């Protein structure tokens, strides 16, 4: 990572730490409560938490859009989101629904070319936790083996989604109304 990028991330982490009363603030305990971060060391959780923010989104709000640059990873804290994929001549198709607490959204942020492969829209009012990709990169740079273990969890999530896609798409589906 470039020094300039690193400075920006460090600055945003420092600023986030100062806003104790900020409703968007996230603590390492918040992260530790999510299954995805199980067994992730404390220093890494603190680092990730410093740059993480909470987002309250209304029903119908877009979390990410297909083909946009994947700058952040999201975790669903409450509510439900629809995963939509655009197909030429067909439109936006619903390919999955996430409603479990801690569900990972926007996994493309972990993989080049860092473009979201689907759009994600709130099915109902939802709360999500957002962590910038850059912060994960810093953690991975400091502890590559931890990075290996975190990416393994991402892979498990995507693998489960692949299995779900077969079942979901093989059942009757309708183009999503956007």
């Amino acid at each position, binding site marked *: 990572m470039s020094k300039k990028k690193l400075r920006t991330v460090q600055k945003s982490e420092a600023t986030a730490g100062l806003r104790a009363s900020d409703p968007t603030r996230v603590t390492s305990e918040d992260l530790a409560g999510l299954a995805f971060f199980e067994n992730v060391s404390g220093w890494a959780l603190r680092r990730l938490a410093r740059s993480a923010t909470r987002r309250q989104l209304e029903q119908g709000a877009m979390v990410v859009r297909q083909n946009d640059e994947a700058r952040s990873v999201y975790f669903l804290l409450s509510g439900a989101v629809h995963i939509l994929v655009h197909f030429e001549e*067909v439109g936006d198709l619903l390919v999955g629904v996430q409603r479990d607490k801690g569900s990972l959204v926007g996994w493309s942020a972990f993989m080049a070319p860092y473009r979201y492969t689907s759009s994600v829209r709130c099915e109902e009012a939802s709360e999500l936790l957002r962590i910038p990709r850059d912060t994960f990169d810093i953690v991975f740079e400091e502890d590559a083996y931890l990075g*290996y273990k975190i990416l*393994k969890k991402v892979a498990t999530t995507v693998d489960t989604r692949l299995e779900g896609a077969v079942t979901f798409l093989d059942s009757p589906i309708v183009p999503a109304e956007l």
Partner: protein
Amino acid sequence: MSAPVSKELELVRRSSFFEGLEDEHLEYFASRARRCTFGPGERVIVQGEPATSFYVLAEGKIELSFRKAGEEMALNEELGPEVEGQVPSHIVGHQGYPVGWASIVEPHFYRATATALERTEMLVLDRELFEAYAKERPDFGLKFMRRILWLIGNHLRMTRTRLVAARYGNMPQTVRALLNQNAATLSVTSPLHKIPHYLENRLTVDDAYHTLEVMKAEGDEVERELAAQIADLLDEVWREVKIFRQLQTTYELVAGATPTMSSEELRYRSCEAFAELFEDTDYVIRGEENLPDAPGHIFVMNHLSNHLDNLLPNDFILTLDTHFVASMILLKKYGRAPVRVVRKSDPGEYGHQKFYDRLGYIYVYSGYVDPADDPHVSSEHRRRLFLEAAREHLKNGRNVVICPEGTSTETENSPLPFKTGAFHLAANVRPEPLIVPIAVANFDKRLTRTRTAAIVHEPIKLSEHLGESIDGRALREFVDGYVYECFRDYVRGAVRLADKGREGSRSSP
């Protein structure tokens, strides 16, 4: 002097999955990989079983299939879990293709079943090997997991595309959707963008094939992987292309034959070419025990329309059902190609005329009469000419194939009402030939996506039903009643036979 590169190292270096991983890591794994050989039908991995190994396709072809969550897998004592009931997936034949990422990803149960379609060699790498090496070299571990993510991500995109396309679209649209899903990484100048256009027309599908081959060998990382994915996706299309090429070659074999070659020899060669084509398709034949011991009989069959995909560039379509009966049933039994009765070509049907003229088939007239055939000849006289020509062939021990409907239709509407010509012929030849009914099904579908069926039924001896002296009215009633009713059941039987499981397919009893 550098040490020779092992086959294993060469393979992983070429595999797009291992792209971006340093050579020292590749050497580590290549030197520790085992080679495993699987015979046709043998399972490489089975969905739901503990995932202990990661595989790389070295040689051969595999089929990947998924069972939907919640569906039980029936067990077959000989072959293991049944494939029936699984969501069909795709066929993979490109070297370096990785199989069994579930060995790397928790909960470590295989997500798919991989079955060898031919003799297949795989490199096998045990899960512990990756785990231990990732701990020792975390820089590798991180990069490797990114490749795993890339692999699963590709599969996720591919699966979504395939399933959506299967529901909504055709093959060009599927490829277009796949290209769109990869728009973020694929160059706008990539020749891969031409593929959907090439696939739109049967005559340019070959260009699609060629472009994919070039891209697989010379494209950048994204192009190579996408080209391989598209090529696997189009496996069925390549089989269709092969059939189309065989049809073209067979047409040329007949229409372009030297003038000195006899009709008899051309009929034989054409039948041989068709037999080669049909051998690679999914078909089933029953009732061959009903074939008379010696030739010289009349074979009547329902006639099915042709799928438009078989339309040759000169607008001629080779009828598949009649050629199937001629090549797969009659040629095999008697060693001689039969003579068919065909409709006289209309003006402009140059391809039709050129082909059938050379085969020496017997023409019947349906409305249009070529002036060269003497316009003053009455239809009664033409019928007499037909009877004489057909009688001659029968007397010389040649089988004659007739489709009494005089036209063709889809399997679902078959048979249409019969004309009586074939039965008049039987009534006018002595010694009396047998009339052998053959019912066919599904030749109007794409040969790569259906199972065709043909059933030979017990021969009819006309005199046993109508006596020695047969009048036209009695014959008409016999054909409209008894024969037609029988044939309706026969065709339904052929449809049922085609619908049955794969057991017994591509074979005679």
